């Protein structure tokens, strides 16, 4: 029996690339660009890829990890501003279990000759799914800190 739960979380990541917004955008907007970096971890093999980059278009990246688990990214584009912004919503499945449904916003800002890229993800993370321990590190650090705070504070 699966224990049902939803965790809502939002975070953003910022990067500055030494390339003009048009080039960075192209790496998100062209099939060869996107396929070159939007992949799974080391040992991951692609099973299926669909790339229809337009508002209402679908993207799908399905693959098999080293452990043999099947990851399936299914996405739809909602907003595209050339060289400026991409908004898409996606669901992630691992072995046919839906682990999350998220909204992702990608912003491209010119800074000098380069580009500041800001990726913001707003997610509903489902059923406390544990993706094979990769999340443990951050958790342990947090709990150790909590533990220390409680101990020394008492």
């Amino acid at each position, binding site marked *: 029996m699966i224990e049902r*739960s939803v*965790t*809502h*979380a*939002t*975070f*953003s*990541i910022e*990067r500055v*690339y*030494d*390339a003009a917004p*048009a*080039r*960075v*955008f*192209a*790496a998100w*907007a*062209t099939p*060869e*660009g996107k396929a*070159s*970096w*939007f*992949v799974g*971890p080391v040992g991951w093999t692609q099973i299926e890829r669909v790339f229809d*980059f*337009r*508002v209402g278009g679908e993207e799908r990246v399905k693959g098999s990890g080293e452990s043999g688990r099947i990851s399936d990214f299914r996405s739809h584009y909602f907003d*595209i501003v*050339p060289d400026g912004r991409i908004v898409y919503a996606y669901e992630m499945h691992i072995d046919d279990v839906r682990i*999350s449904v*998220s909204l992702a916003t990608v912003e491209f800002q010119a800074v000098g000759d380069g580009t500041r*890229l800001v*990726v*913001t*993800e*707003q*997610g509903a*993370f489902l059923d*406390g799914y544990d*993706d094979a321990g*990769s*999340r*443990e*590190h*951050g*958790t342990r650090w*947090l*709990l150790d*800190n*909590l533990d220390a*705070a*409680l101990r020394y*504070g*008492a």
Partner: protein
Amino acid sequence: MVKHMLNQSVPLDRMFHALADPARRGMVERLSRGPASVSELARPLGMSLPAVVQHLHVLQASGLVRSEKIGRVRTCRLEPKALRTAESWISARRSQWERRLDRLGEYLARHPEAPTQRSRT
């Protein structure tokens, strides 16, 4: 919500702020032994109910404590799990993004003349 979570350290800041006060640490200690009503929390601290409620707000904002009102009694419980789950989801998804954005940087460096044509909407 978005603003609060933009910086990953904000939840930690709130948690440590919540635990910086001895009265609130006392409440967390009490709750670590099991759920309690607001008046049960107030009693050993010798504090007024409004003061306890105020501390409770801080603890709830930090994600450490959850409370629910059943009938006329508000019951509080420790909820480190909710915080832990959110943090762990974020760190997993973040590290995936970090890996991919590293690869994007490598791709851009390898392809200085990368095609800029794109499908239009």
